[in-house]
């Protein structure tokens, strides 16, 4: 899976915007949106919010969790806990990147937020690698990881699956009676 595909899935998340135009309710296949009145906040999917923002037709309101103090708390919690803590949003990384790239004027302290989210990401990825390493070194049969987001899973997926495949092949060498016989002959 491409990071772009994960970003595409993230764009379905709802964000609040304040439009500067008016429009009646629109009926889309995925659901109804609107009506849009200037100055009144309305919830729309991220893809629409970004589109309006680029055409300067709205102002985006950052989600509740995109606040310096809250993110600092989350970062401290993440550093203290060994397991993965619940994330503010299942697509926090993508939302941060998109909103900070397109709507940084609507978000206070954008740079600090970027750094905080990066810290949280780095901590979580480090935990993920640690748990992958212990998974392999103890040759567990299965593992359960809560609170992982799709983007984190996506970065490690190819590597981990390939390694597990190799381990499986090497382990099947140990099985009595099948020592290499399962391999195709030339």
């Amino acid at each position: 899976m491409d990071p772009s595909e994960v970003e595409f899935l993230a764009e379905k998340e709802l964000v609040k915007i304040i439009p500067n135009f008016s429009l009646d309710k629109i009926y889309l296949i995925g659901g109804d949106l609107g009506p849009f009145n200037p100055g009144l906040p309305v919830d729309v999917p991220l893809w629409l919010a970004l589109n309006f923002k680029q055409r300067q037709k709205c102002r985006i309101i950052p989600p509740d969790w995109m606040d310096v103090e809250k993110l600092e708390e989350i970062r401290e919690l993440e550093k203290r806990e060994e397991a993965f803590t619940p994330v503010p949003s299942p697509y926090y990384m993508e939302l941060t990147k998109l909103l900070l790239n397109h709507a940084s004027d609507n978000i206070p302290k954008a740079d600090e937020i970027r750094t905080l989210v990066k810290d949280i990401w780095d901590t979580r990825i480090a935990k993920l690698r640690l748990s992958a390493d212990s998974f392999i070194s103890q040759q567990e049969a299965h593992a359960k990881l809560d609170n992982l987001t799709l983007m984190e899973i996506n970065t490690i997926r190819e590597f981990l699956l390939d390694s597990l495949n190799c381990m499986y092949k090497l382990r099947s060498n140990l099985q009595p009676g099948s020592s290499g016989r399962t391999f195709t002959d030339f």
Partner: protein
Amino acid sequence: MLSEAEALKNSFENFLSLDDILLSHQRLPVRTECAFPRLGFLDRSSDSEDLPEGTKMELPLWLSKGLYERKRRVLSVKLPNVYREGWRTVFTADPNVVNLHKMGPYYYGLGSQMLHFDSPENTDIAQTLLQTFIGRFRRVMDCSQNAYNEDTSSLLERLDCLEKALFQAGQSGLNGFQSWEKGRASQLTASSLVLNYRKRKMADVED
């Protein structure tokens, strides 16, 4: 999650895989258990037309595997040094220290194939292979996931082919994420073929 093409690529012995073909060309020291009439030319150092019983020479893996029979009437294969007791102790002590590329670039592949030859040390060899892989896994993961946009040749030179493939997989995950984060994922760039062949623009062609 894996497409069929990826599953095929992942299978250890794939008939058309270049890595497997190169692997099967690795030479093994063998000892003939019976005479090979009129095949004296196989052994460069011998002058006679026949290969007498008990000749020691090297044959590639694909030939040894084909000729080997359980009743051992044809040849017996000597275990290469890397898989013997001495080296096995080194691997158990610290797998990260060894330069697996120098030890034969196909350590894991060849090791798995050696198990065909019914040596009494088979279980130990298989155990060592697995433990070495597990021991080196952390190093390979850290290197592949952290080296972004750097020259990785010094990291790669101690890895065997299997580990190199894993390294590439890790790098592609990392590079994909980093280029997405920089916003390069959605930029259209000219294909390298076009740039290299320097295709002329329409205006030039019309002139």
